[in-house]
């Protein structure tokens, strides 16, 4: 009977539940909004579209973990917030380093009095940042146990450091106490780095987030679990971390602080300078980052005021009209749109070792260039990118040293010409409308792709383009890691990739085409003697007109060879709520919250 009574009321139970639920939600909403006032006043809420991996600078390679690390840890150098093109500025160093020995010796003077955030590993004592911390942190990059994805940036560059890694192979021990000739703390605050070859880009490396200072005590205390225990000298500390869901940063009370002091570089900067100049940073007390993978979810969250920042993504036409003007409904809300073209490039490579599309024979050149001419990037931008991208004309994108807006590309969209070109080289059309190779063997492109709906859109576009020139194309979806593995082994015929600048210099891009980088970053396995000669010549030059000229020649060479289907550089539209002050998109830095302020009068 008891069972009966219990279940007898089953009809009403859900109803009661619902009422209870409603009451509860009202109550908790009220309860929620109450403590919000006692919480830190200035909070910024933003979303990442992909999960982070962790917060140990040399260990992580993903964009989002790097972004968080950028705010927690400090580099020797950083970038000027306003200057465009991006310009380096000192961070923990007093000034830019002294470069001597024809670009082979870099000497950094570190500011005294910079403290790490307190941490039990320091034994309760204040812990000052010294040159030795950078020696340690740089050594860590090459420690095989750390397996840093950034090792390539200093591998084979610093005198004696590679030898240290080599000894590990024999002894199994990577000894941090071994003196390395090219990496020394001359005194408490002086760091000297000596290179094997002149490298005019080394300052960019010193400004790169993975090369931040970490404290040896902390790393040794947490061993394998450093990802969850970031301890740095930067303006923010990790307050709360729900892996793959939520990251909360708070102002580091120990941070030395800095003044907002930047010079106008572009017209739009004047307003920023007027509002922000002289303010003591950081002003934002708390940064709340949610991981929202689905675009619809994060967009609606922004529109519902659950976020202060948002990209525009697929929803561009909701915000901007055909002319690119913001629609009145958005203007009325005071939402500001910041547009910037990312220092990045998308491209599809051809595998030069592939029997179908590879090789330097004239008809292969023709095949590749016909394919390039048939692919409609305008439509890619219009339909897939929703108008938020610009055509890439060179392998060096806009905003990166070496890009020349006046360069006129060779292989422009022209399917009619592509068809004629294929005809003239004997790629005959069969009965089914598809072409064969000149020797009569079948012609089939195999395009590696991913599994997202965006990938699908690209495949649709590629299919359309290839149908026009009668080239049969097949798509082979795979996981990113599988595709990468196959690409490095020169086994993918074609694959679309993107490259985001590690530092805003053309060298970071053209190295993707350098023959000896095959198996590392040159996934198309493009080995052109002419190109390699040009590249090697450019390595020996600092940023100069001569080097820019070489970049142009390299571009022409890769176009002639049809090495890549150049893609686009994506335009990033960032929408910000009216109470967020001082924002400007930086091409390299991502964690720019430190430079922001919130206008409490406008805040909700």
């Amino acid at each position, binding site marked *: 009977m008891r069972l009966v009574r219990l279940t007898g009321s089953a009809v009403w139970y859900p109803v009661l539940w619902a009422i209870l639920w409603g009451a509860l939600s009202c109550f908790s909403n009220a309860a929620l909004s109450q403590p919000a006032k006692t919480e830190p006043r200035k909070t910024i809420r933003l979303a990442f579209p992909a999960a982070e991996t962790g917060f140990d600078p040399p260990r992580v390679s993903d964009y989002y973990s790097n972004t968080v690390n950028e705010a927690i840890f400090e580099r020797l150098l950083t970038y000027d917030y306003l200057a465009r093109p991006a310009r380096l500025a000192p961070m923990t160093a007093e000034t830019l380093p002294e470069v001597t020995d024809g670009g082979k010796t870099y000497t950094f003077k570190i500011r005294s009095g910079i403290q790490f955030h307190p941490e039990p590993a320091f034994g309760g004592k204040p812990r000052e940042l010294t040159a030795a911390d950078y020696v340690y942190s740089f050594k860590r990059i090459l420690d095989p146990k750390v397996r840093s994805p950034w090792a390539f940036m200093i591998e084979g560059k610093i005198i004696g450091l590679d030898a240290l890694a080599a000894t590990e192979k024999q002894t199994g021990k990577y000894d941090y106490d071994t003196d390395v000739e090219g990496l020394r703390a001359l005194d408490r605050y002086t760091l000297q780095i000596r290179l094997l070859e002149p490298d005019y880009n080394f300052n960019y490396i010193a400004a790169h987030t993975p090369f931040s200072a970490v404290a040896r005590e902390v790393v040794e205390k947490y061993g394998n679990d450093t990802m969850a225990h970031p301890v740095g000298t930067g303006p923010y500390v990790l307050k709360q971390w729900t892996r793959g869901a939520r990251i909360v940063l708070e102002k580091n009370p120990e941070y030395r602080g800095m003044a907002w002091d930047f010079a106008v570089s572009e017209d739009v900067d004047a307003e920023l300078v007027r509002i922000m100049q002289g303010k003591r940073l950081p002003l934002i007390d708390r940064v709340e980052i949610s991981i929202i993978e689905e675009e619809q979810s994060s967009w609606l969250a922004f529109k519902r005021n659950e976020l202060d920042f948002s990209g525009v993504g697929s929803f561009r036409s909701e915000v901007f009209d055909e002319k690119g003007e913001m629609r009145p409904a958005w203007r009325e809300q005071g939402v500001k749109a910041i547009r910037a073209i990312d220092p990045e490039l998308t491209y599809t490579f051809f595998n030069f070792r592939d029997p179908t599309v590879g090789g330097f024979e004239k008809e292969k050149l023709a095949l590749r260039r016909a394919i390039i001419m048939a692919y409609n990037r305008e439509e890619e931008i219009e339909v897939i990118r929703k108008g938020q991208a610009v055509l890439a004309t060179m392998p060096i994108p806009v905003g990166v040293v070496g890009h020349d807006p006046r360069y006129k590309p060779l292989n422009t969209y022209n399917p009619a010409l592509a068809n004629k070109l294929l005809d003239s080289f004997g790629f005959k059309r069969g009965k089914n409308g598809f072409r064969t190779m000149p020797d009569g063997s079948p012609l089939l492109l195999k395009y590696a792709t991913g599994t997202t709906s965006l990938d699908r859109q690209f495949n649709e576009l590629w299919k359309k383009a290839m149908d026009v020139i009668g080239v049969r194309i097949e798509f082979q979806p795979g996981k990113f890691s599988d595709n990468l593995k196959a690409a490095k082994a020169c086994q993918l015929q074609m694959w679309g990739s993107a490259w985001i600048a590690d530092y805003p210099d053309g060298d970071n891009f053209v190295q993707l085409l350098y023959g000896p980088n095959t198996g590392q970053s040159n996934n198309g396995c493009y080995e052109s003697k002419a190109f390699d000669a040009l590249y090697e010549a450019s390595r020996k030059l600092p940023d100069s007109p001569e080097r820019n000229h070489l970049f*142009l020649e390299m571009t022409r060479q890769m176009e*002639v060879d049809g090495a890549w289907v150049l893609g686009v550089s994506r335009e990033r539209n960032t929408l910000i709520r009216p109470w967020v002050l001082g924002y400007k998109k930086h091409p390299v830095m991502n964690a720019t919250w430190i430079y922001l302020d919130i206008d409490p009068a406008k805040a909700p």
Partner: protein
Amino acid sequence: MAERLHSFEAAAVPEKRGGGFWSLAWQRFRDDRIGVSSLVIVAAFFIMVLLSALGVIAGNWNKEVGIHDAPPDLWGLLTPAVPEAVGNAAQRAAQTMEKTQSMEALPPSTVVDPLAETLVRLRGEDDALPENRIMDPLAETLRSLGADDKTLTVEKEKRASLPFGGDRWGRDVLEKTVKGSQTSIIVGLSAALLATLLGTLLGALAGYYGGRADDVLNWVYNVFSAIPYLLLILAVAAVLQQRGVMTVILILGLTGWTGVFRLIRAEYIKHRGREYVQAAHAFGVPDRRILFSHILPNVSHVVLVKVSLLAVGFIKAEVILSFLGFGVAVDEVSWGSMLNDAQRELILGKWWELAAAGGAMALLVTAFSLLTDAMRDALDPKIRVAP
């Protein structure tokens, strides 16, 4: 647990059935008005699938007949086609050109550009490439082919609106939905048949023979059903690599057979002890015939119901597979691929693709499920209770 249910039902079915069993069932079915109307709807879908498979209808689903995101308008076919609207790729190209030109027209800078001369050469003289340090082996050919002929493909006439609207490339959503029905229904049915075939075969063997065979097959069943379905699907999808209708069928069929196995195995265990089986055995009828000619017809109604339940489930599962990126290939269309394409468009007010695919699917699945119910009731008189 659904399996348990079926075994309850099946238990009461008389094992010896005259030819009258099916005709009785049909009579019962005819009285079920919901069942009959469901049957009509499902039949209509099947005819549509047949016509579309034969290419009679929806043959042009892949043609871009309308402008990008053409809005729905039932009279759309009556409005005249227009040349591709401005504000698209062509205009953008013009803008880019304009931008480049205005850049070149900047007032002379005081900065000396040592590259200026090179750049003039690079810029204006495609035809004079031999002067460039970079040799272009194709320069001669391209010139003879008329590289200067900048005419792009002739602009086609596009419709400003379509009866059910257009997708992002301007393809007709109505045709896509029809073609998508074909793919989705074929996927659902074939995968259900595959899963049922597998499950029935293994279940029959395990149930009939028992002993070692049962142990082994049961073990396989246990292993398959212990691994989370999502992981199983992801793994099988990764093994199969290629994309296409066939792959989707295989993924669903190979992972979905366990329910049938359990059900059929229980049925065979029950039947193997029955007199008619013992008798056949005594007469020396080969096992193969006992398994599939004697017992199978007696459990076929269970199988039939299971097939249609699975088909409904798989049609829905195809959407999830598409979401996970394991849907049909690029030159095919299914309800799943349409829903995933349209995922972000609702917010932009472009509801038609989502509505068309989602509505068509809801209609078919509802009809199919109700048909299954009616079928089950008709085949299983025991359930029918006088009020």
